[in-house]
């Protein structure tokens, strides 16, 4: 039967979901970061993994990330509805029912954890389960609406994927995977607060206690510089572990010098000047922060490839 009866059309939701809406629930852009960092964590580990098992493991780590995204969209539908940036998401726009998002999130959580356990090992699977719990419960349900430190502590869930990738290969944790975690963990606050500086009105409207809303822009600018100062030695220090080498060190030195300069400029900026040029420096810093993380992890991967070819490493 290829036709729809008039009553069916009348009673169908005006914005019935297509497949793409369910994909959007999984936050594909966040998933791409998860895929990339988990892949680097797995590839730079000192234990080789069968390529099919490696690809499957990364896929299920990404699916776990997507599941937590769906749970986040289920719980945050009320504030997403208020914010311009998120109002067109599947749940606030009415294309997907909240219960569907919750069901999809829970089902994919179970599938991803189970399949990662079968594909890689149960330590990695337990780590993935903890990460989903951390993002959905600790960040989304608890911290996001209660403290301006929400993205600092909640950022841990975005920093776990390279550790899970490493655990897939080695079955455990080591200083190298902890350094990769710390790199993302301390990168997250300057990255998000730079975004919050030019998206402030939205967070204010939604009542999300972003640092810019609770403590003002001056304090946020100070905090961006503070976290960038803490981040630099961690990023440079990671280059001295077994996953680093001369190339990683050179990349870390250059990237952190630029990142520090950018953070210092933001710290010195006057709010009136920033408003006048529509937060050009803050936008530039935000864009650079994306390149910063991507290039750091690319350097780890290239170093590992060089090491395998008899170059690279210490």
């Amino acid at each position, binding site marked *: 039967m*290829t*036709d*729809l009866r008039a009553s*069916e*059309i009348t009673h*169908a939701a005006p914005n*019935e*979901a*297509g*497949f*793409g809406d*369910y*994909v959007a629930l999984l936050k594909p852009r966040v998933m791409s970061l998860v895929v990339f960092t988990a892949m680097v964590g797995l590839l730079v580990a000192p234990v080789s993994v*069968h390529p*099919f*098992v490696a690809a*499957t493991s990364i*896929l299920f780590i990404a699916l776990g990330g997507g599941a937590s995204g769906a749970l986040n969209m289920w719980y945050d539908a009320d504030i997403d509805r208020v914010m311009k940036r998120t109002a067109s998401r599947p749940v606030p726009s009415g294309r997907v029912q909240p219960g569907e998002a919750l069901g999809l999130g829970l089902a994919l959580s179970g599938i991803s954890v189970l399949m990662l356990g*079968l*594909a890689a090992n149960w330590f990695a699977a337990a780590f993935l389960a903890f990460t989903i719990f951390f993002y959905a419960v600790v960040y989304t349900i608890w911290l996001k609406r209660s403290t301006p430190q929400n993205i600092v502590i909640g950022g841990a869930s975005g920093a776990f994927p390279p550790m899970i990738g490493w655990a897939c290969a080695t079955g455990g944790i080591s200083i190298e995977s902890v350094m990769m975690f710390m790199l993302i963990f301390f990168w997250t606050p300057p990255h998000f607060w730079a975004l919050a500086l030019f998206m402030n009105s939205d967070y204010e409207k939604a009542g999300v206690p972003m640092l810019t809303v609770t403590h003002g822009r001056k304090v946020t600018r100070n905090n961006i510089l503070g976290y960038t100062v803490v981040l630099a030695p961690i990023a440079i220090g990671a280059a001295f572990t077994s996953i680093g080498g001369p190339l990683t060190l050179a990349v870390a030195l250059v990237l952190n010098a630029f990142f520090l300069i950018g953070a210092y400029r933001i710290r010195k900026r006057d709010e009136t000047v920033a408003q006048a040029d529509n937060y050009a420096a803050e936008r530039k810093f935000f864009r650079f922060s994306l390149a910063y993380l991507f290039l750091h992890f690319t350097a780890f991967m290239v170093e590992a490839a060089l090491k395998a070819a008899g170059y690279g490493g210490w």
Partner: protein
Amino acid sequence: MMNGKVFFTPEHELHKRRFSRNMGLGLVLAGFVALVFGLTVVKVTTGELQETYSQQSHGGSQP
């Protein structure tokens, strides 16, 4: 059929969305089956499943 001509009802927007959902779900399920099959083949050929079986049946010690 009217006057020897066949009339098709124009496809409604809802048709397209439902078709995309069905097609997407079908592809995801087919992909999942292929993935589990591939994983099984890899585990069997690399002997990982056999190792697990030996460990279980011999109380963790290798024969």
